[in-house]
């Protein structure tokens, strides 16, 4: 940032033109990225590396739903199985994800939440969404006739997880959309397939959430708080308590 001026002394100052070009280009790319995410063009994913995170939503409603047991390899080398829930299209009534980490003896909690706080609307929408669940509880508010886990249409239980269908390309179902293990052509990996389905008042733990298509997350908030944080609660939801 220095040069020699006409008087022979070093010259200090900002090369505003050069910096401006750099800053402008960088900011333009960042703004474009944010805009693309917010306008559902770029896919988003949340990957939990070596420990599960808690999640909750007042409702998850999907079309072309598949559930299958899938083995996972975590970043710390440990293995396990999860119930992978895939949706060709999905809408959610509020969503919250909370993960506690400890680095150098300092414990903090990252909480991601989105939603409009209105229990009557499923305002979060996504295509090709996948959740890797290790446990969950799906209940409902009093008087709800269709609470819990509900599958609609032609439902199949006992399929190989590889044979579950969710997304389509050109009108044809994609093969193995859950990316289940193909060992033994999928033998031993239990799968459930449904035309559509829903989970109401759901909370639990997950290892991974991915949206490989577009996503719309209104009122997205990300908070980092010291300590183990508070329980994940979907925006405006009466549940989870």
């Amino acid at each position, binding site marked *: 940032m220095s040069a020699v001026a006409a008087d022979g*002394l070093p010259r200090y100052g900002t090369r505003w033109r050069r*910096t401006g070009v750099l*800053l402008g280009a*960088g900011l333009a790319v960042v703004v474009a990225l944010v805009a693309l995410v917010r306008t559902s063009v770029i896919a988003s994913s949340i990957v939990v590396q070596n420990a599960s995170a808690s999640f909750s939503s007042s409702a998850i409603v999907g079309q072309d739903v598949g559930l299958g047991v899938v083995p996972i390899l975590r970043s710390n080398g440990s293995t396990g199985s999860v119930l992978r829930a895939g949706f060709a299209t999905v809408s959610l009534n509020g969503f919250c994800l909370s993960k506690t980490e400890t680095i150098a003896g300092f414990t903090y909690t990252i909480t991601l939440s989105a939603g409009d706080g209105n229990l009557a609307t499923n305002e979060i929408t996504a295509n090709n969404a996948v959740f890797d669940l*290790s446990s969950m509880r799906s209940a*409902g508010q009093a008087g709800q006739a269709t609470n819990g886990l509900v599958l609609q249409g032609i439902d*199949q239980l*006992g399929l*190989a997880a590889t044979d579950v269908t969710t997304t389509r390309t050109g009108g044809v179902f994609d093969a193995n959309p859950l990316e289940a293990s193909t060992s033994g*052509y999928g033998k031993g990996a239990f799968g459930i397939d449904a035309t559509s389905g829903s989970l109401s008042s759901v909370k639990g733990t997950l290892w991974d959430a991915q949206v490989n298509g577009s996503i719309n997350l209104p009122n997205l908030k990300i908070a980092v708080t010291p300590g183990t944080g508070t329980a994940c609660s979907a925006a405006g939801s009466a549940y989870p308590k």
Partner: protein
Amino acid sequence: MSRPVLSSRWRQRVLATGAALALVLGLTSWPLPGRVGDESAAALPDGPYVCGPNDVNRRPLTLSSGGGTIRPCLSGVDLQVTIPDNTSNVRYAINKIRSVDTNNLVDANGTVMTDLVHISFDSFVIGQNTSGAAVPVSGVTLATTNGNGYTLNLSPDAGVTLGGPGVTTDLWVTEDSWVRVNDNMLGLGCLVLTISGNPCKLTVGTFSSLSWLLNGSSYNGYGMELHVKYLVTYKTGGGVPTGSSVQLPNTSMAIS
């Protein structure tokens, strides 16, 4: 002689560094073709999933009530559906129980599963009696018993629907599966066939000899243990049910 602009050097550095960082972060985050949202995804095959060499393990199954033929690729995993047994309290209702036939099926890897009994239920609802009145039920579980290194448990704590009104549920179960049911005709059948008690505890393997009774209507159920290899719900007479076919209210899921 010095210039006063030296006092803003830190601000300049921060600005320049920030600009460079923003550009680098933005460019490295830009989605390149083929890696959009694909962090843990493997490449997908181009066509539908193949079940065994040349899809040979995808065998046709004919559904019982106008549902046509379906060609599932089966996991071979047992899903044990349990309603704790008792002889005095109704736990579920079924309009019809049909014994269709006995099949040898194959799983995805070609292992033969012998003597599976193909049965079907009409309007199977747990937590109701045949009059449609709610009845208390607890301890209902759906759990895998021979998964590949895992156990999946689904534990609903209220009435479960596996089919429901206007829906037929076809199941392929092992022949040691059983149901305990009762109605007037079947009570007589229990007496004639000296099957254990009334309400009758019937193993699925005996269904074929009781088909003349079981095809009647409206059975109250008291207990059940089904080892299900495959279950499918569809609109009675064929087609896609308009409502919910499977309901697991207030349900906990765990995989271990």
